[in-house]
């Protein structure tokens, strides 16, 4: 009979191997390009190259704060993301709980696929689905719904009012399916014994959900929220650019930092200014994660990310 030598390494090596493609991806995609940070402080010149170009201090950052747009885009980015975090989490948890309560029937798998489907569509496609609904001349809403209700046609792409609701709705429709999967996985990990004990004590379904499922999900919710806060200064470019069909009349409610940078720099292709915008977004995001985490640690040390 052979005896296996207990090797300490063997515990971590397989895990490291599993994680290695992800780690590799992170290094190549997120760490190597960090050299580009230089460019934010340089007056980039193709001939002189990245290191040879002149330094120009904070000149590249000025355009971000130049006009009233600065206020509008910052407000939009922060407000939309805050709403997305709150409503998105609530919707995802709700869907996860409902799915879990339905058990492991075939129709659950059908619902799940249906919920995941929008996530696989690109924003361009979703933009056109939206266009099919909202087009002023031939759209479904104007041509069918509003006509049946006897309401006058609305020129959707030049009426800013409804857009905050449209954008939130479209965002939830697209992402809820995927984020609920993570919560469903966490729910499956809860010890069945707890539910059985509660049942014996006469707890109703609702009580089980409120007293057991949701508290057990708290760490997951906190981690995912912290990560979302880190990206609060980034916006989903496709959502804010493709879905409103880049309509100028809607900029007051659709302009975010990403779309502003894209529109402003399309014409000039200015490398330094793009780098400045990206650096500004990540720095603010980084500070927000640190402070949100500090807050969590103060309230409940166990749930803090680090």
């Amino acid at each position, binding site marked *: 009979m052979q005896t296996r030598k207990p090797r300490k390494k063997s515990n971590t090596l397989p895990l490291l191997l599993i994680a290695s493609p992800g780690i590799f991806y992170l290094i190549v995609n997120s760490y190597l390009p960090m050299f580009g940070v230089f460019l934010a402080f340089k007056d980039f010149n*193709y001939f002189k190259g990245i290191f040879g170009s002149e330094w120009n201090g904070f000149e590249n950052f000025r355009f971000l704060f130049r*006009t*009233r*747009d600065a206020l509008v885009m910052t407000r939009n980015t922060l407000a939309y993301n805050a709403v997305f975090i709150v409503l998105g989490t609530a919707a995802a948890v709700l869907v996860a709980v409902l799915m879990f309560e339905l058990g492991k029937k075939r129709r659950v798998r059908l619902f799940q696929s249906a919920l995941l489907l929008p996530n696989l569509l690109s924003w361009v496609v979703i933009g056109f689905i939206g266009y099919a609904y909202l087009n002023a001349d031939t759209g479904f809403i104007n041509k069918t719904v509003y006509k049946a209700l006897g309401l006058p046609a609305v020129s959707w792409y*030049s009426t800013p009012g409804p857009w905050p609701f449209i954008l939130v709705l479209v965002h939830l429709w697209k992402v809820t399916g995927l984020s609920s999967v993570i919560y469903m996985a966490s729910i499956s990990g809860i010890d069945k014994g707890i539910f059985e004990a509660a049942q014996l004590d006469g707890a109703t379904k609702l009580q089980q959900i409120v007293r057991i499922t949701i508290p057990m999900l708290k760490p997951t919710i906190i981690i995912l929220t912290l990560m979302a806060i880190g990206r609060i200064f980034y916006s989903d470019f496709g959502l804010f650019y493709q879905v409103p069909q880049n309509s100028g009349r809607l900029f007051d409610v659709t302009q975010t930092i990403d779309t502003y940078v894209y529109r402003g720099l399309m*014409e000039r292709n200015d490398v330094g200014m793009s780098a400045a915008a990206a650096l500004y977004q990540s720095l603010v995001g980084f500070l927000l994660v640190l402070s949100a985490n500090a807050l969590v640690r103060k309230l409940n040390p166990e749930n803090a990310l680090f």
Partner: protein
Amino acid sequence: MKPIKRLFLLLLGLVLTLSLVQGVFAQSKQYDQVTYAYATFNNIPTTEALAGVEEAINQITREKISTEVKLVPIVIWEYSSQVSLALQGGEKLDVFQSLGDFNTAISTGMCVDLTDMLDNYAPESKDLIGEAWLAATSFEGKVYGIPTYKPIALTPMVIYRKDIADALGLDMSAVNHVNDVTEVLRKVKAAYPEMTPLAAVNTGNIGIGLTVPNVDYLTDSYFSPKGVLMNDELKVVDFYASDEFAAVTQLARTWYNEDLVMKDAATTASAAAELMASGNYFCYIASYSYPEVDTAASLEAQAGGYPLGAKIIGSAFLDTSSINALSWMVSSTSKVPEAALKFLNLTFTDKEIVNLLIYGLEGRDYVVNDDGTVRYPDGQDASTVPYTAQLSVGTLGNFFIMHSLQGTNSESLAWELEQNKNAKTSVAMGFTFDSTPVKTEYTAVVNVIEQFLPGLVCGSADPETDIPLFLQRLSEAGLDEIIAEKQAQLDHWLANK
């Protein structure tokens, strides 16, 4: 198992060595390697199809200028960013075109100064283009680019459905101004209520901006002017505050209110040809550099095969950007600028090379008719032949030595050359604006223009309320600084002229 493995390794080593040796031999002929990046409006060809064209070009260039050329066709809407990324990333790219970014290319050091090299490596092109045009591609006395040699005088026209105009008995010859179009649109709307008379040219543009005559955009894009010269004055003014702009937006508003123009023109993702092909539209307004008959004939195939007519409704006007918007440049990262310029010279002077670039291989991609015009091989068209860049005719090299596509009139070339010479020229011809000193303001102003301009020129915004707001936002974003900077550069240029 082991001997087999060893044998395999040996074989692998042999193959690798052989290919290495082969590589060395191939290199040893010592041709300069030039990479030529051009924009195409057609499909990107497959590698094999492209290789055939490259080989045919190389057979000429090896002999004439001992150079081998690598072709890099890039889709038009990705061109600027792809070229910019390639140059940043140190990819090999020797020749590219400015595509509207003429000054950015100079101020960011993307291209080299060609002044002294022109005489040695591209004398024929220099003579062909002439000093007057080269002035437009110069900055502070140095030549940085060679402008594409083609009909450049853009004339605003109405492109309309001939069958409908005939059926309604419309007299299109009486339409000589954009204001005359209104009556035509009304008649069409009355006869065909289900139809939308006027289509958009592309997103946020129904073509009326360019019908304002005598405007020098001073290096800005036609769709996003920031400080212009109007009516031969040398004073930089705000286009959006002018009476002319107020008049066209008012006209667009009238059309919009009377349902004469498509409602979603400001945001539509469809371009004119596609809209016309749907059969739901009567006409659109755009500027072309070819005669009326040719323009109409060349557009029919894309516009669903309906018979089309064209009517000029304004006059051509030349400013610096009409010439330097499509300039060919040699990149500052090029190791072989001389060879690059020599090849560039051939695209302006060598009939075979330029036709290979545009039409591909004779027999495979096109056939020549008896009258000298060309057509696609039987049963094929622009989208099925292995290689064609036919829609790039006006963007590269010398247009006047290219084959003409079947159906074009041989007298047209004369008309086009005439237009180039006779079109009204701006008082500031040759001046180019460098936006670097005001790039912060520029970026902010672009955003404001994108917000307001499409709605105003497409009629979906009311000029009464929107123009004052637009002007106020522009001023907040720094348009006044841009205008002041433009005036200062213009005065400096005039003083040194």
